[in-house]
Every structure is written in C-alpha cells, then in structure tokens.
C-alpha cells in the first residue's frame, strides 16, 4: 500500500537548530510512523556548517537543505540574457512592487524557472534596474540611492535564489512558517498540484519585523523595504495555502489581521506526552531547585532569570538554578551569562546542563521558570506542567492563556511582566513560602495539560488533516 509522503518545509530550524519548532516537527514525524516525511530545510549559509541535532526518525526519507545567501551564479562568465516576454515582464513587475494579485502565482513560476533567467541575470538586467529606479523615484527619492539599491536588490536576490532550488516531490507540503518556507510551499503546490498546509508557531511577519527594527545591518531609512517584503511573503502563503494553522487564538487573530482568509484558519494547540512525563518521580532533596528548559539564547532572556535568582538567594539560602538545554547556538551570549554569574558570585548555585534528556532533570525542579521575551506556546512549559511543576512565566505568547485561562480548573502558575527580574524573584519567594499553593498549582498544571495539551490529541488532528489532503 502506498504511504503518503509529506514534505515539511522549515526555515532556520529542524533538523539543525534545537528549539520548540524543531521539537514539534520531530514529534510530528515520530507521531506518524505510517507516513513518510521529507524535510526541506532553509538555512542562511553553508559556511555556518550546521550539524544535524536530532536522531533521524526511520520514516524520514530525505533532508534537503537550501542556503539562502549562497548565490553561486554570481559570476559574470555565466551570464545569459533574461528570456521574459512583455506579458511576463508585466507580471514580474507587479511582483517586484510587492503587489499581491491573481498573477502572483504566475510570477512565482516565472522567477523560479532557471531557464528563463538566473538570479544574476535578473538582478543585473536593465529591466530590474528600471523597476528599482522607478520605485526609488516614487517612494524613496529623499533617501540615499546606493543603500536603497542594495536593500532592494538583496530582497529579490535571496527570494529568487530560494525559489530556483529543486523542491522534493511529495503528496502534501507543510511549511512551519510563512516567509521563504511559505513561498516554497506555495511554489510546490503550483508545481506538483498538491495541497499545501501552513502552521505558524509565532507569526513570522511580525517576528521578522521585530528583527529588522532591532537590526543594525539595515539602515533605518530602508527597514520598511524589508518589513513590507516579509509581510508580502506572508500574504502569499496565506493566500495560496489550503489550511492555515496556529497554536492559539491570539495568533490566529493576528494571521487574519495580516491577510489570512478566516475560513482557512484553524487552531491546533501543542501537545506533550503526558503519560510519559507524569511518570517522572519528584526527587526528594533538601535543596529548593528552580529551573528552566531552554536554549541559552538572547530571546529567552536568561540574564533576567539569573538576576531574579540572585535576588532570591538573599532570602532562600539552599537554592539552585538549573538551566537545562544546549548553549552552543550563541556562544557569545552564553559567555555573557557566565560572566554575569561570575559577577553575581553564583557559580556554585547555577548549573548549565547542556543538551540532555530533560526527563532526567524535571524531577528535580520545585518551580519551572520561563523568562522569554517572545514565545509561541512553549512545549517546555507544558512538559513541566505534566510533571506537576508549578510555573512562573513571563507574559508572552500563550503563557497566560495556558496557565490562567482554564477557569474550570483554575490557575496553574504565575504570570510576570517580561524583563522584570525583581517581580519574578518576589514570586519565587512567595511560592517557596507557600508550600500548599506550590502543590496546588502543580496539580492544576497537570490537569490542564492532561485535558487540553496531550500529544495524542494534537497528532490525531494532524492525522485527519493529512488524510483529508490525500483523499
């Protein structure tokens, strides 16, 4: 019997980067042993020498990697001239202007066709030059042309480079974000006439907007180009995908706000293996242990957690902080955290475990901490809740929703404002002093996860959706 083949398109995540999205993909593949999977992974550059971070599931047939910034055709000796006719040029013109229209599909087909034009030919053509100049004259006349030119050119160089890659054949395409992954999903749908699903853990366009605003590599005058561009890519994915899935209502509303047709949107929450996690026994120790499962990267605001912990040590003597997760992704930030720990003289009380099996550590924790400044619906928090660990989390993503919105069960943790170490510290101390509340929150957490966030629930919904897309 033929087994359905699903191609997951991931940007900056599986199987090379450990994190919530990657764990989710890994869980999805392992949870569907009756299906085959292929991975189309988009990474910034081959130079970064990314390593595979997950054990390969037996039903994973292929991992194909596309490098965004490695544009090999950039050699003049390879130059061949563009072969678009007038109608095609008009279609591409509208695409370059970031206009979403009925022709967008055709524009993607044309741009992705290597026979029509290479990236180099296209971005050095008179046609492209004229389009850029007209855009500049209409919208950016007062700004510096040189920077404008390079910003605009880069935008289309990267996109065209991604689109001109070969996409593995499959029965269904499923991207885990919009952006480049989303556009590849749309292209695959056009090329192979197969369904395309989109699941967003955060909201891609908004996350990129934040990155661009924070970034130094793009000048303030031209940030708008990149922001508009990422919103444009999202709109393409929303327009052509067959199903648009988000993890919680707030993000679903944002997707609709950014152009997703309401009738295509669904909410499917994350899920964890509650039965397996609930078997973890709590270790009895005289120490009071707080901790988190996380990657040591800036978005997790680990420094805030360390500062909060320092404040707590003034009140609770016998306390330790476990930072459970890999620290190799951003070594600079890891070193900064270590320096902070040195400054605060907390070396003996803070433990970096590195990449480990979280099940070996969850039993130790009395309180689970989450200090992120941006999140979707954190799997790590759900895992902690299934071990009956009370949670103190920052007010990001769906943390408030998971912890406090299930009124019939009650609140399972404490929400604190992001970046507020003093408040997090005060809440740790308050929970430490109230053992019965600590227990109650843990029990409620388990009840919430067991009722709403079970892995089998989420996998069953995807199974149905995949079946629907195959029949």
């Amino acid at each position, binding site marked *: 019997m033929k087994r359905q083949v699903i191609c997951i398109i991931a940007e900056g995540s599986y199987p090379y980067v450990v994190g919530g999205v990657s764990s989710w993909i890994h869980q999805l593949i392992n949870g569907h042993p009756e299906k085959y999977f292929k991975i189309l992974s988009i990474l910034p550059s081959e130079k970064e020498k990314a390593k595979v971070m997950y054990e390969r599931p037996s039903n994973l047939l292929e991992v194909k990697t596309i490098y965004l910034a490695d544009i090999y055709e950039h050699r003049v000796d390879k130059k061949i001239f563009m072969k678009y006719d007038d109608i095609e040029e008009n279609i591409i013109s509208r695409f370059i202007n970031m206009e979403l229209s009925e022709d967008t599909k055709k524009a993607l087909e044309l741009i992705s066709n290597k026979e029509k034009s290479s990236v180099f030919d296209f971005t050095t053509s008179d046609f492209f030059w004229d389009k850029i100049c007209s855009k500049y004259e209409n919208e950016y006349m007062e700004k510096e042309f040189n920077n404008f030119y390079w910003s605009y050119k880069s935008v289309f160089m990267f996109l065209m480079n991604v689109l001109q890659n070969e996409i593995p054949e499959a029965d269904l395409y499923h991207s885990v974000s919009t952006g480049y992954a989303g556009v590849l999903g749309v292209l695959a749908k056009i090329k192979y006439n197969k369904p395309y699903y989109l699941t967003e853990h955060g909201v891609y366009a908004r996350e990129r907007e*934040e990155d661009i605003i924070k970034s130094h590599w793009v000048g303030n005058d031209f940030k708008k180009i990149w922001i508009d561009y990422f919103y444009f890519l999202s709109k393409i994915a929303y327009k052509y995908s067959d199903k648009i899935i988000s993890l919680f209502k707030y993000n679903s509303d944002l997707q609709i706000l950014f152009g997703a047709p309401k009738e295509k949107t669904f909410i499917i929450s994350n899920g964890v293996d509650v039965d397996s996690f609930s078997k973890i026994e709590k270790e009895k120790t005289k120490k009071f242990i707080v901790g988190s499962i996380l990657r040591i990267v800036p978005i997790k605001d680990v420094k805030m957690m360390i500062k909060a912990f320092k*404040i707590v040590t003034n009140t609770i003597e016998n306390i330790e902080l476990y930072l459970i997760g890999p620290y190799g992704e951003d070594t600079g930030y890891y070193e900064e955290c270590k*320096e902070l720990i040195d400054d605060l003289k907390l070396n003996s009380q803070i433990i970096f475990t590195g990449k480990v099996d979280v099940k070996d550590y969850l039993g130790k924790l009395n309180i689970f901490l989450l200090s992120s*400044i*941006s999140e979707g619906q954190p799997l790590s928090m759900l895992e902690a809740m299934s071990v009956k660990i009370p949670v103190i989390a920052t007010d990001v993503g769906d943390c408030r929703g998971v912890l406090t919105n299930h009124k019939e069960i009650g609140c399972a943790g404490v929400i604190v*404002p*992001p970046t507020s*170490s003093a408040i997090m*510290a005060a809440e740790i101390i308050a929970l430490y002093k109230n053992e019965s509340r600590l227990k109650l929150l843990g029990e409620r957490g388990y009840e919430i996860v067991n009722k709403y966030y079970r892995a089998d629930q989420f996998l069953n919904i995807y199974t149905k959706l995949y079946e629907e897309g195959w029949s």
Partner: protein
Amino acid sequence: MYKLTILLLTIFEGQITYMTFYLEELNFLNFLLLHSLVSLILFFYNQYSKRDALIYNRLSFTVPFVGIFLYFLNIVFSKEKDFKIVDEVFDFKKYLDDKFFLKGININKELKLISAIDTMNIEGEKEKKIFIMEFKPEDIKIRVRMLKKGLIDKDIEVVHYSAIEFNKLSERFDKQLRKYKKKYLSSKKEKDFDDLIIFYGNLLKNEILEGDILNLHRELYIKILEERIEEDKRLKNYIRLLDMYLITEKYDLVEKECQKLSKVKEYNFDIYIILTKLYYESKNLIGLKKMNSKYKTEEILMSKEVENIFKICGIER
C-alpha cells in the same frame, strides 16, 4: 444610667472630632449633623429624665456651637498652612536664573515626559506600538520609565513590544559595560578608567537596573573605584566614590574619607559639598550648622546645591 449615656455620647463626640480633624474623613455638613444628633439625644434625654432643663439643655445647645467653633478654628489654621505651601510653590524667584529662565528644569524634557505619559495612558495598541518603537528621547531614564509602563499594559502586544525594546536597551548597556570593563582591565589606563566609570555611573542612574541588582552594581562600582583610588588619587575619583557612599548610605565611610581629604585645603570646596549632603541625608542638624560656620570662617564659596540645603533647613548664612 444617665452617667453611662453621657460617657457613650462623649466617646461618640471624640470619634466625630477624630474623624473630622485627624483623619479628615468628615465634611462640614456631616460634622454638623452628627454634633446636632448628640445635642438632640442630650436634649430629649434631659426632657425625659426631667432633670434641670435650664442647666442640661444649655449643654445640649452648646455642643453644636463648640463643634462649629472647632471646625472653623481648624479651617483657619489649615489655611495658614496652605498659604505657606502656596508661598513656597509661587516663590518662583529661586527657580529663575539671571536671564529669568527656569533653572534646573529642562522644559523640553518635562514636556516630552508628559506627552509620553499621555500616549501610554490613552492611545490605542497601534499608537502605543509605534510610540514604543520610535520614542527615543536623549534622556534614557524617560524611555526606561515608558517601557516599564508598557510592560504592565493590559494589551499583550504593548507588553510584547515594550519587552523587546527594554531587553534591547538593557542588552546594549550590558554589552557596552562589558566592553569598557574589558578595555580598562587590559590597559589600566586613566582614559579607559574614566570611560568605564562615567558609563557605569550613568547606567546606575538611568533606572534600567533596579532593586537588589542595582544595589549589587553599586557595590561593584564602589569596588572598582576603591581599587583605582589606591593608585590614582585624583579628586574626581574620590568625589565619585563619596557620592556613591552617600547613595548607599555608608555615612561613616563618607565622614572618614572627607576628614582625610579635607586636610588638603584646595579640596575643600568639593569635600564640603559632600559633607553638607551627608549631614542633610543623615538629618544631622548640628553637623549642618557646623558646616555653615566652616563655610563662613574659611570663606569658601557656597555652591547653589549647598545654599539650597541650608535654606531648606532654615540655616541662613
């Protein structure tokens, strides 16, 4: 029975007086009504018990009048108090400089702050988001205060953008501080030390750090200065150190260091400022008077700051 009634009425009277003059919870009308109620009880009780109506009813009529008298007395005295406050507030002269501009107050900054507070209080999520991203006043403290306000906003989007910006800001300062520290530790040069200590000083003032973490950084700042002073005895290092001792309420250390430093006469202009601040902060009026006479006898020029401290404490030159 009669004595018990009088006792209860007296307690009730006491309560009314306490609530009116001390807690200021009763207005004039309520005060008057309650007093009249006491008088009426007294009046009817006397009628009922057939006591000497002339004597006892006189008492019942007197009670409200005494009350009204007390009330007006309070109004007169509190008005007097208010006048003093109003005088203080409207005494503009001391806030004006030679050109009749307000001194010590940056109008532009204050207006920016008012408008920022308005935006964060009133505007919708979209406006707040744009404001959070684009409001970048020179004074970091204002930005920090606005972002902290955003962090506890009801709208999760406002919280989100405030968190992103606050984190960005604190990371920027953190990185810069590390850079300065590394540079100074490797070179030990005076310029690198000054860069570090000026930057660190500003960081401690701009409200990014708070609570115990702020205290901890203050201690680290003190440690850096103390170590430096062992070899680099410039007065400005001492001043920075003494200022931080004052902030961290290490008053004995301030006094001890100042005594050592005041042996060098040319230091006294700065050292006396610190000492005046010390006595002011530690509420030591005798010390302040002693400083005032030192200023007089040693004929040292008084800074505006010191002048104001003496003025506030009622010590005239």
